């Protein structure tokens, strides 16, 4: 057998990629194209027809409920992005840089991942007995005589949504950042210290810049998930906080498919802009 045939065989025939392409095209690209198309359809009370119109788009931007949902989504996304970063970075710093033993850092990462094997919805629901007026936090704070009256803003507010999302998504920050920190060459840090740099200087000049790709990957994970959320906001805000996802769910529930599609297109656009912006900060292909 000649070398050429061996190499050709080795890499496997390229038709093997076809089923994957077809599946993704049919069940991801076409559905999203369909959302864009239907957003221009005409909505009647219980039905839609394919007569093109801008009515749903005009209705979206004329209504405070819908534009309000857009701004709430952006606001909650930014806040949760910040909280997951602030909560997650020190943990990642410890796991990725300070823990010398490989076993311990693996154990810590596994501990962080274990909660993901509980149903997402139950993880969300678990915050209710935690935050409620007679919830665990209020009881503990009252027992410790820190507060005399239960704090009521903890549950069914925007705050509870932010707390819940921060807990559910912060691990997605920890993982990528810890990974990047673990790859830093310890000799660079040693060298900087030998040259008399303090920890603050080493952190800002070496550690943080080198961990930035991890921060971006984590931020992409968190953003993608928070922007598409509706269950956490629904369950922990008592339907007071409406994200774009919640609008889509309620519109579909009342068979307003055209409005749901308009919201879907806007969500897609926001998501695309966010991901593009992150990829602009750090060139992932070069870093990974």
């Amino acid at each position, binding site marked *: *057998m000649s070398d050429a045939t061996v190499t050709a*065989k*080795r*890499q*496997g025939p*390229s038709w093997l*990629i076809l*089923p*994957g392409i077809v*599946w*993704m095209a049919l*069940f*991801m690209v*076409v*559905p*999203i194209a*369909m*959302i864009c198309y*239907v957003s221009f359809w005409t909505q009647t009370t219980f039905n*839609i027809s394919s007569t093109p119109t801008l009515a749903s788009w005009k209705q979206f931007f004329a209504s405070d409920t819908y534009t309000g949902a857009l701004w709430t989504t952006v606001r909650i996304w930014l806040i949760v992005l910040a909280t997951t970063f602030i909560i997650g970075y*020190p943990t990642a*710093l*410890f*796991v990725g840089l*300070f823990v010398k033993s490989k076993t311990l850092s693996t154990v810590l990462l596994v*501990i*962080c991942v274990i*909660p993901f*094997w*509980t*149903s*997402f*919805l139950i993880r969300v*629901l*678990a915050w*209710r*007995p935690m935050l409620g007026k*007679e*919830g*665990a936090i209020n*009881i503990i704070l009252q027992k410790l005589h820190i507060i005399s009256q239960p704090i009521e803003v903890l549950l069914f507010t925007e705050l509870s949504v932010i707390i819940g999302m921060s*807990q559910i998504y*912060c*691990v997605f920050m920890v993982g990528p950042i810890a990974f990047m920190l673990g790859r830093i060459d310890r000799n660079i*840090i040693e060298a900087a210290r030998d040259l008399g740099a303090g*920890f603050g200087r080493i952190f800002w000049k070496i550690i943080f810049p080198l961990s930035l790709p991890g921060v971006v990957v984590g931020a*992409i994970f968190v953003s*993608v*998930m928070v*922007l*598409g959320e509706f*269950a956490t906001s629904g369950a922990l805000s008592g339907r007071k906080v409406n994200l774009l*996802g919640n609008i889509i*769910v309620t519109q*579909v529930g009342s068979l307003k*498919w055209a409005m749901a*599609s308009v919201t*879907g297109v806007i*969500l897609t656009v926001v998501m695309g802009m966010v*991901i593009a912006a992150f990829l602009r900060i750090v060139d992932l292909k070069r870093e990974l």
Partner: protein
Amino acid sequence: MESRVLKPMLAVYVVAFILFLYGPFFVLGILSFQEGPDGGPQFPITEWSTYWYRQIFGLTPPSRIAPLPVGEALIRSLILAFMTMVTSTVLGVMSAQAFRRKFRGSGFVFYLIVLGMMVPGVLTGLGTSLLANNVFDITRHWYTTAFATHVAYTFPFAFLVMLAILNRFDGSVEEAAWSLGVSPWKTFRKVTFPLIFPGVLSAMLFAFTLSFDEFPRSLFAAGGSEDQTLPLAIYGTFSVEIHPNIFAFGVLTTLFSFALLSVYGILMGLSVRRARKLAMQEEIA
């Protein structure tokens, strides 16, 4: 590094972080032992009991609180997760195998596949149900439309896992088989597949757990029909009053996940040990 001050501080912080991650679970676990059927989903515990666990298994007399409709939903979810697991692992292995050769447009195809794990389930779910309703005029079910969107979500994970495995794969063993005249398909079955099996197991685990817990895609793509999956059944209890039975159920599903994880760990350990044994035999020979 100012290890003496900073490291203990960070260690304390990490402990607090883990408490933050696990706090709600402890509360959930405690409240699942609330007295039933009159105890509410909050403190204080009026009386410790296993009522809600017994209720899930249908061992309690009927009361005003209906048991969770989880029996059939659980079976549906398991079947759906299994179907999704098999399909996305097969697709993942095939695609990653194709990616061992550079082909035209491979960069584009890579992003097309990886996008599947990025697009929110609300969007693919909505789009699929629009297509089902308005173009194909078919009823949405968990085993048709929801299955398709589940695979479009889990296949990218399987693909990435297999890509990572095949990148480190030593192709010379395959070449040896081919030069001895073994057919490509037989080579794949007898040589390649056993070697990449640990990766296949990881891909399967990813696909199964992601699909089993997948909610937004199911909500749209299987919504409206009577035959719910498990996450849909749980979501159904959100809108009405919450009872501790959902907490008990949460504890049970967590235990189930651990069982699944242990099976995966055992299989992984066995296959690693077998590989090591084979390598040792080779060395002796």
